[in-house]
């Protein structure tokens, strides 16, 4: 090989290695909230795509072929875990033929495994109790305090897949944790004065999915409109719980956007109690386009129901 | 069939959806197209039309066929799985063969051959060109000199069930896949007074 050819070869090799080394890590997440978190932690080193749009109920999604294709090209997959995606994600992972992102692979991340789980059932659990999550309540991203705990596994997975940027991911995880604490403090301050003077429960949930949010901000729940999780309440149940909630001084019901509208209308009719319907995830193309906006929206909704204007 | 031919058919299938509406519209139209010129003599047994492939020494009436010869029933079966109800008698040394799931020459398909030697009834089940099973033992209790109503299910996927006088005798399996829809009888010193085809008695 002549000297000039060697030079071209060397330049080409350096260019190729440099290009490869600087390609962002392709990460696929199940939810938009996790996509936002991964982007906060990974920064410019990651290219993130969420499978869901933020408007779906993650329990009941199908293993859509497009999901399979996206996961087949990912270097890392981040899911909530705690059986939230048990109905569809295992199928998506298997059909992707991507060994790196399957359970046990270095690119597989269950963010929920590092979270201090609430509402983990004790004793025997079976389906006669409704759609019970035997691993505990999976909706931890609704609380910035709990969401911060997911930073660890996310960073660890990014480091495993892209060790060259370990320091950056560690810094990113720290910043993410600090940001979550900032959000928590700011929103807690909004609610503190409103709830300090209230004894007893202030709200009910339609479905028990707000446990982490309520616990973080010191809000007490009267329970859920659903008698059994995932089972639509009967007319008798609606009447019974409407009466009980009124008697206990509950101010309003908090429900996710995927809760059945007709059931909520019926409850309002019986109880004269308002229902506040909120998004359950970040929706990048809507009013809650990122996590801070999503948290602010939730807190402002609660504050409004408790009689305060948005701060 | 070549891969190219299959591909061609695949492309053709792409317009299958358009065919659906047309086919469904055609479905309700009754009546078959006019028959082509029929070179075979046509007879009736209890109202069911049949033609004679080999006249031999057959004797015909509206209620019986006897002697020696081969006949084929005009209308094809409605399914690959059918039941055949036969009432017949055999003279000493006589035989009757039911040919099912066959072609216009009764060359293919499944065959049950009943033959009589004294009071003994020999029954052979054969399928395709080479499968043959002597199932006489199943019919050991059936008197050859006065045969009861015989009902035979023949399922194209390789299964057959036999009843005599309404009693289920046995089930048989065979390997040959048969695709024909025509059926007929070969007689030799036999008399048939009933030959009907209908839905399989047991569908499995």
């Amino acid at each position, binding site marked *: 090989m002549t000297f000039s050819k060697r030079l071209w070869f060397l330049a080409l090799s350096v260019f190729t290695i440099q290009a490869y080394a600087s390609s962002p890590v392709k990460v696929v997440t199940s939810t938009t909230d996790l996509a936002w978190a991964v982007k906060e932690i990974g920064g410019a080193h990651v290219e993130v795509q969420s499978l869901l749009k933020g408007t779906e109920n993650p329990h009941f999604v*199908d*293993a859509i072929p497009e999901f399979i294709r996206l996961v087949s090209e990912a270097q890392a997959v981040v899911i909530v875990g705690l059986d939230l995606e048990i109905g569809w994600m295992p199928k998506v992972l298997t059909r992707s*033929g991507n060994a790196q992102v399957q359970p046990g692979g270095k690119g597989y991340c269950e963010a929920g495994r590092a979270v201090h789980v609430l509402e983990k059932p004790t004793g025997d659990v079976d389906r006669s109790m409704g759609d019970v999550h035997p691993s505990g309540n999976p909706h931890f991203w609704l609380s910035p305090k709990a969401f911060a705990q997911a930073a660890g596994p996310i960073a660890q997975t990014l480091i495993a897949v892209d060790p060259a940027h370990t320091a950056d991911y560690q810094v990113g995880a720290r910043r993410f944790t600090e940001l979550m604490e900032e959000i928590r403090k700011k929103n807690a301050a909004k609610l503190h004065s409103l709830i300090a003077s209230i004894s007893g429960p202030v709200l009910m949930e339609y479905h028990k999915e707000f446990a982490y949010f309520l616990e973080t901000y010191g809000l007490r729940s009267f329970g859920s409109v659903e008698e059994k999780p995932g*089972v639509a309440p009967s007319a008798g149940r609606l009447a019974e719980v409407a009466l009980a909630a009124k008697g206990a001084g509950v101010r309003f019901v908090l429900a996710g956007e995927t809760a059945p509208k007709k059931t909520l209308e019926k409850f309002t009719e019986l109880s004269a109690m308002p229902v506040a319907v909120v998004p359950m995830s970040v929706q990048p193309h809507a009013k809650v386009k990122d996590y801070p906006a999503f948290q602010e929206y939730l807190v402002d909704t609660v504050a409004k129901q408790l009689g305060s204007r948005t701060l | 069939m070549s891969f190219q031919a299959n591909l061609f058919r695949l492309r053709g299938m792409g317009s299958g959806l358009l065919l659906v509406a047309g086919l469904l519209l055609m479905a309700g139209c*009754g*009546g078959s197209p006019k028959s082509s010129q029929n070179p075979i003599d046509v007879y009736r047994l209890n109202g069911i039309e049949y033609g004679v492939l080999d006249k031999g020494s057959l004797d015909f009436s509206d209620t019986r066929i006897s002697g020696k010869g081969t006949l084929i029933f*005009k209308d094809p079966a409605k399914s690959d799985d059918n039941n055949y109800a036969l009432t017949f008698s055999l003279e000493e040394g006589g035989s009757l063969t039911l040919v099912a799931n066959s072609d216009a020459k009764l060359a293919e398909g499944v065959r049950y051959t009943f033959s009589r030697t004294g009071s003994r009834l020999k029954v052979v089940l054969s399928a395709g060109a080479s499968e043959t099973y002597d199932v006489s033992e199943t019919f050991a209790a059936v008197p050859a000199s006065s045969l009861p109503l015989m009902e035979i299910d023949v399922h194209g*996927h390789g299964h057959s069930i036999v009843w005599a006088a309404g009693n289920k005798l046995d089930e048989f399996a065979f390997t040959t896949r048969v695709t024909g829809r025509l059926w007929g009888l070969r007689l030799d010193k036999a008399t048939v007074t009933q030959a009907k085809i209908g839905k399989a008695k047991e569908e*499995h």
Partner: protein
Amino acid sequence: MENTRSLYFFLFIALALAYVSAPAASDGSGLKTSVGLDVVGQAGLNSTSGASDRLDVREFEVMLYAPADHLFDGMGSIAAHYEGTGIPQVELHEAYLGSSKLIPRSRFRAGQYFLGIGRLNQVHRHDWPFISAPKVHKEFFDAEALLDTGIEYSYLLPIPHFLEVTAGVTNGFVYGHDHSAGSRPLVPTNYLRTVTYFSLPWDGGTQIGLNYLGRRGGEGTQRTILGVDLTAKWKEGALLNFLLQSEIWYRVLTPKGGTTQKAFGLYLYPQYYLGENLFLGLRVDYYSVLNLTDAFGSPVKSVELNFVPTVTYRPSEFSSIRLAYNLKPEFQGGASTTGHHLELQGVIVLGAHPAHDF
């Protein structure tokens, strides 16, 4: 007697597996057990209905699956069912090893399985959106599904659109519903499927598959089947607001030295969510032997239709109750008959969470 002994043996194994699988799963093996129970009854409404006029446990299926190690997974299922005769049959349904970790963008399985062709053939019968097999499926494959032993490979093309190709070859000693051990084929069963997916407006999506299957049996019969399958869904949360499912098939059977039979069939099933966990669907079946002739060589038109309005009550993804009415007009030559019957089905799924396939 033999079948009763088999049934008791099967029940013992199933119960033993269910008993051990719960603690076994907590030992880190990941073993999951799932049970499907499918009870079906038919009541004829006229003499040409062809209904069984009985209630049967159509299927009691026990499924086990787990990763074997970091590379391979295993799956097995055994089923007890009544074939309309009142006598239980016990059989091995699926038993295969596979992997989606060995070759990038690929998965394969080897063993006994329901062939990866069409739509209904790949879905366990108790998961179908209707009770019984459409005519074309029953004729071309089986009343349940085509099952054989072989190897199957699927590859997801590396393009910015979902396109997956599956190819498989199985022993082919038997085909579909077979009461014998079969015989060596001249050409084993071989099949190919290409499937793609498109998003649809209003949060919908559709999957379309093109299919080919071929086999030449030991007796020389060449079988060629071509088909298209389509599934379109619109979901809102847990609710399947609208489903459209259809398969269109064409088959050529050529016996050695015999008459070629050409047949065509399809089904179309739209289903709509009424509310209160109730779904209403109407399946239309069409089946025709295209080149049927009478004994004298005259063409005979042969068409079978089936109209099956179906109501499903599905309180959760683990149970359903279904009622269907079957109206079956059949036309052949100048004659027509119409059968009517009712079907009732109850399905429950126990154990591990079933996958939400599209």
